[in-house]
């Protein structure tokens, strides 16, 4: 099914996706959108792991496992992040990231 598709293509896709995530994280104001951007980043890393596993070490499962763990971490991170966001929302009545600057200086 993957014959003919070079490894590099996968990697390029995941790279672009990663940096779209980074870009999103930097430019969006909304905390939830930023969270989504993080999901994008994690997802692109996942792809890399899996692809490396498939192409370079097909006889092992490390890549998959790491992806699994990342998924787990992503889930944990999302839940905590959303809890925080809701708390921030309660305090500030919005979730604009610029307003969350109590800890400056």
């Amino acid at each position: 099914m993957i014959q003919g598709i070079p490894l590099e293509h996968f990697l390029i896709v995941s790279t672009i996706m990663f940096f779209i995530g980074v870009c999103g994280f930097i430019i969006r104001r909304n905390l939830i959108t930023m969270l989504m951007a993080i999901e994008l980043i994690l997802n692109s890393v996942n792809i890399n792991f899996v692809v490396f596993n498939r192409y370079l070490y097909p006889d092992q499962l490390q890549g998959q496992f790491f992806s699994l763990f990342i998924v787990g971490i992503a889930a944990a991170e999302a839940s905590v992040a959303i809890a925080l966001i809701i708390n921030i929302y309660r305090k500030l009545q919005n979730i604009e990231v610029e307003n969350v600057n109590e800890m400056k200086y």
Partner: protein
Amino acid sequence: MTGYTYTLFIIMIPLIMFLVTGLLGMKWKPIVSGLLGTTGMGISWVLSLVTAGSYFFGGHHAEGFQTIIPFEMKWLQFTDTLIIKMGILLDPISVMMLVVITTISFMVHLYSIGYMHGETGFARFFAFLSLFTFSMLGLVIAPNIFQMYIFWELVGVSSFLLIGFYYQKPSAVAASKKAFIVTRFADLGFLIGILILSFVTGTFDFAKLTQPGTAIFGSAASMSFLGISAMTWAMTLIFIGGAGKSAMFPLHIWLPDAMEGPTPVSALIHAATMVVAGVFLVARMFPVIHFQAPATQEIIGYVGGFTSLFAAVIAITQYDIKRVLAFSTLSQLGYMMLALGVSGYGGEEGLGYMASMFHLFTHAMFKALLFLGAGSIIHAVHSNYMYDMGGLRKYLPITHMTFLIACLTIAGVPFLSGFYSKDEILVAALEHNKLLFAIEFLVAGLTAFYMFRLYFSVFWGKDRHYHHTPHESPLVMTIPLMFLAVASIFAGYLPFTELVTSDKVGFESHMNFAVAIPSVLIGLFGIGMAWILYKKESDVPAKLAAKFGMLYTATYNKFYFDEIYLFVTKKIIFNYISRPVAWFDRHIIDAFMVGIGLTTEKISYQIKGMQSGQLQHYAFMFVAGTLALALSMIYLLM
């Protein structure tokens, strides 16, 4: 040779008395401390006399007296050769000093029981007296120069404590401080002198240092600093130490002020014992000074001569009787120094040395007598000033008689002890230095004049208005007066030339009438002048004073030396050194250190804006930083 081990007790008894009365004195009745101290001192005195008797007269001394070290223990070791030992050294001058110190000290103790009666701090006074006596004894019996320095300092401190005995009186506090600091300054010279000496010779021991012809100075000749040889430096500096203690010009300023202390203290410390420590030191180092640093000996002679003249002139104008006596002491100390300055070494040549020690001995007796007499007068009229006194001979007969004897002695009237010792000095001076002889000859007349000025205005003249009729002091005070009067008369008959000489070998002495007769005459002339001017109240002195005008004022103000010193210390040291240093420390060095802190704070204040709280800025920075790192790793370092 260990027969003298008991001499240890001479110095240990005062120490024990100091500790006992100092620590427990508060708990007893004051008189207990007084009696205890006096008894202890009495025992020391008797022991000293026994020592002197057996040392001087207990054997055959045709080839000279031996130096005996009956006790010595290691106290501190610096290097293999530089060891401080604590010990006792007996030789003619130290035995003589033992006698002088214990005698005067015992008399002063006895006298103080009466004089200090009822004062607060009676016990303290006796404790300090014991401390002083201990230190002074330790000084004279020191077998090495470092022990001498140790006790030298202790003497300074006990003098400080005793001058400042009336510690609630600001003038006493100031005087004690001045005395301590001036002598401390001189002690610095002494210390540096010791350092140089020990560096050159590698020893502290007098036994090695003062041996004539010793080889330890072998390397000294080649050493010099600023063109002056090391030994001259060392000896001059040590002499400065001695000059400080003996209040030689220009370090004399503390002695007149030291009269703020109780009068017995003045008698003990500032007339008879401590102030002669400087003379003793020079005498102790005499062989070294004479052979290794002749230039220093010249200096000593001139300083002594100048001081004696200078002090005698000032003494004429003073009204405080204790100050007159203080300047008189200065003048007499000048004599002793001068005698050492003009002395040679060995036999007849060493006449000056012998004369100096002789004069030291007689002077201790009559000057202590004068001070104790003055104390008796002050005790009676409650004033220090001559213009508050007059006609006292009726009220204070014993004091009057003894005081007269002392005045006659110091004036050099024949057949009293002062005559003999002063005469020897004049002879020695004449043989070596005519100029110094002339000075001393003049001073002899001045001495007679100012002493009898004092005597006549106090005991003669018309009665003053007294608060209550002056009465003679109690027996406990007059006994020391009488004893010392007897000593003053007869001390001159001791065969000093056979006992205390520069090379420890006795020689025959003979009267030099060519010197003796003129000196007696000038003394009598001085007395006569005083008789004319002060026997009866008259306005001649005032007229004379007015005639001399400026000169008189300058003399009365002691040639403004106090002011000069005050200017130097207050203005220059305090204002122009200390204050800028303190300011510099706070405002430059500290400010610099604080400045480092403040700069850090400022910078952090400036850059804290970077910590904007904007998460996305941080994220960007993070990414940018990572990229920059990656770029540099890949393209720059590879």
